[in-house]
């Protein structure tokens, strides 16, 4: 960072600098455009369509072809709606909560790499990473930022000054803390397997074999943990409509509600990306077949891995939706028991076992 600042300081801008700045800006635009402009709206639609599919009905199909424009219509509706603010709420925190929901969600994706190091087909002089912020602490950053999502829920629930919201917030925050542990521990296994915390290096280490195979147990832990962290069914107890009306966002409406909605999908995208990167080889083609071995010229076809990465991401997003309409909701005590009594012990055991095996493998 220091270097970067000093470089900006000397106003001696050459082409390379411009290209690099453009590359940087391009990455940001691409990611956030993709997230907020495509994935989130598409997911709203997909969710409803898949719901229809699973429940053997149509789903939205009036606005636009296949109802594709339905999301836009909803968005416009939310934007135009009156910004209601109940009288008993704590005004500052009431507004702060949805903002706090979106910002970490967006920040989290900044550290996600979405392709191998590349020169963009020769545009860049040196190969650079397709990643907004190249932090040497890698996934820890994602985890750290992800953990901040709790505050929005908690604040929303508390600021609404409503017992359902508070209960929802309590549930959500307890659940998120609990499952963060399990998720973190299972990721540690992956880190041990790959030998790095840098996500790009983790992907590179999966060239021969994806982590899902040696780290299957870790994935088994990681999967429910990300469901719980994003408050998705079957762990969406924070907003369980039947008991808590809608949980922490009962009092929200209009675009504030929309922001929560948005944040949820972005979060889903982030954790899906993590899952792909950590366990499913990131942008690599197939478990036994990395791009390098296909014989394709990866310098010119540099976009193929990126596309393949997003395809995998999409599959995961679909998986989220699929699960949502298939598996019923857990009871709260079952949820906590699963987290503390099953997942954490398993992941601890897994960690120890993996370490032991690795140590013995490396022993001469």
């Amino acid at each position, binding site marked *: 960072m220091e270097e970067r600042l000093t470089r900006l*300081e000397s106003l001696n801008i050459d082409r390379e600098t411009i290209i690099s700045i453009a590359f940087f800006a391009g990455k940001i635009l691409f990611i956030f455009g993709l997230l907020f402009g495509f994935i989130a709206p598409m997911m709203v639609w997909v969710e409803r369509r898949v719901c229809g599919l699973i429940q053997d009905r149509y789903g939205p199909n009036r606005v636009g072809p296949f109802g594709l424009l339905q999301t836009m219509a909803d968005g416009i509706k939310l934007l135009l709606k009156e910004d209601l603010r109940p009288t008993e709420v704590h005004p500052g925190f009431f507004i702060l909560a949805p903002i706090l929901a979106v910002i970490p969600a967006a920040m989290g994706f900044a550290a996600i790499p979405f392709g191998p190091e590349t020169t963009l087909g020769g545009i860049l002089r040196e190969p650079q990473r397709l990643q907004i912020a190249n*932090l040497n602490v890698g996934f820890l950053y994602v985890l750290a930022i992800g953990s*901040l999502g709790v505050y929005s829920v908690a604040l929303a629930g508390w600021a609404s000054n409503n017992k359902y919201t508070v209960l929802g917030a309590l549930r959500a925050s307890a659940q998120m803390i609990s499952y963060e542990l399990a998720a973190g521990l299972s990721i540690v296994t992956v880190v041990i397997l790959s030998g790095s915390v840098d996500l790009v290096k983790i992907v590179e280490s999966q060239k021969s074999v994806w982590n899902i195979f040696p780290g299957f147990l870790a994935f088994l832990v990681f999967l429910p943990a990300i469901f719980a962290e994003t408050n998705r069914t079957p762990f969406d107890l924070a907003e369980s409509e039947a008991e808590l009306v809608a949980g922490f966002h009962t009092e929200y409406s209009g675009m504030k509600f929309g922001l929560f909605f948005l944040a949820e999908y972005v979060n889903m995208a982030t954790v899906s990306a993590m899952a792909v990167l950590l366990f499913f080889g990131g942008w690599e083609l197939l478990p036994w077949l990395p791009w390098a071995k296909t014989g394709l010229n990866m310098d010119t076809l540099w976009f193929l891995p990126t596309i393949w990465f997003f395809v995998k991401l999409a599959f995961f997003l679909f998986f989220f939706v699929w699960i949502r309409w298939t598996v019923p909701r857990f009871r709260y005590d079952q949820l906590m028991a699963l987290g503390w009594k099953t997942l954490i012990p398993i992941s601890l055991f897994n960690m120890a076992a993996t370490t032991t095996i690795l140590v013995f493998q490396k022993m001469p």
Partner: protein
Amino acid sequence: MENSQIVFFIFSALILVTAGLVAFRPRPVESAMWLILNFFLTAGLYVLLGSHFVAVIQVLVYAGAIMVLFVFVILLLNLDPRELGTDSSVSWGSLILFVAFLSFILLSLHVTTPELLEKMPPIKAGSTFGTVEALSKTLLTDYIFGFEMAGVILLLAIMGVGLLAYRKINNPRIVNGSERP
């Protein structure tokens, strides 16, 4: 004044201001929120100091875990002002005395050892300072005892909290923590 100094002063000012807000906002919720912000700013300061890993841990553990616990408890108790009690200002005197004294010591340190005021040398080019690898290597070799002790302390804390939170359930209908008809 250099850019980095400006950034540092901005961060410092913000840290101090948020600290003040943490200490003296009447509601614990607000305190907690300001503290989270304070931690974020501190994490930023750590990034400035080159300790990236520490910064991330600051966010992950402090902001992401410890403070969540606070917020959680605040939510759980949902206290009104009466239950919080009124704050006192009795200790201002001793506090001022203390601050004055410590300032005096610090200032006199400055006088006696002026090299403290010299700027810190920049991080060397190939230095691994602040990386996870360097840190963990030190942690697991030179400081292994401290590391183990930290583990023991954590274990003790877990046990202690478990003990504190444990309550016998008198209602026979409640099995496995949930109520069954």
